[in-house]
């Protein structure tokens, strides 16, 4: 009985991974994200930048040095202004929040590994944007 269940679960997951791999996933061009990363990494406060974009919006999640977190709000404003001025056609979300960094990094990995399609990416990005706007 136990073996049967394990076998079932195994085939179930193998089936999923097979379908994902077999799909041809076309991606939103990520060069906007790459460019925004290049712009921000030149700041000495910044330790790491994660960015994702679809055709309309761009999410940039920035990690900074711990002692710079005292100036979190002013830094966020500065980075946001810089990115917004550079990419005028995009709805830009810049965040220094740990949760947004985590989520964006995860999506970045998924894009790299080709395990997410455009529709899911847009959906997930909307969720991240909502999360970053939620202050309550």
């Amino acid at each position: 009985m136990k073996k049967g269940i394990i076998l079932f679960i195994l085939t179930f997951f193998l089936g999923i991974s097979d379908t994902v791999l077999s799909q041809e996933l076309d991606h939103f061009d990520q060069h906007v994200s790459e460019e925004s990363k290049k712009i921000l990494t030149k700041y000495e406060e910044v330790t790491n930048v994660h960015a994702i974009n679809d055709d309309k919006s761009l999410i940039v999640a920035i990690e900074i040095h711990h002692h710079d977190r005292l100036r979190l709000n002013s830094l966020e404003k500065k980075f946001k202004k810089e990115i917004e001025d550079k990419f005028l056609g995009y709805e830009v979300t810049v965040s220094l929040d740990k949760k947004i960094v985590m989520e964006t990094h995860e999506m970045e990995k998924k894009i790299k590994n080709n395990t997410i399609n455009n529709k899911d990416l847009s959906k997930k990005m909307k969720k991240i944007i909502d999360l970053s706007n939620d202050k309550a």
Partner: protein
Amino acid sequence: MANNKKKNLTPTQQQYQDFQSKREVKRPVLKNCVKAFFVGGTICLIGQLIQTFYIYNFNFTEANAGNPTVATMIFISMLLTGFGVYDHIAQFAGAGTAVPVTGFGNSVIAATIEHRSEGFVVGVGGNMFKLAGSVIMTGVFSAFVVALIKTILVTWGGLSW
């Protein structure tokens, strides 16, 4: 008042008072501060761990993970007060346990336990916020004043939200 009293004392009494004040055990202020610092710091560390837990495992950002964290910390301190554990910690650390938000939970439950014998409505209900009420009142009122000042500054002072 105190000086008057001292003047009225007989020489023997004055002598005794000097003798007594010399031998009185001094309050270990520095030791108490160190204890409060470390125990209070430990409570804050636990709070930080809970906050990180909420950020990593639930849909909370750094901005709003504070709310469930405070609720959890108060709940834990309420349970500990009920079981009689918090009193021992408070006896050891003093202000270290009263200043963090856990002291709020402790003051609610301590008042509740004290007045339990007077019944649920008049005793527990009526005295639940005897100590913590002033804290809530101060919080609500100061939030109102700060909001008022900010509204005025935004409307007429040219400040942005």
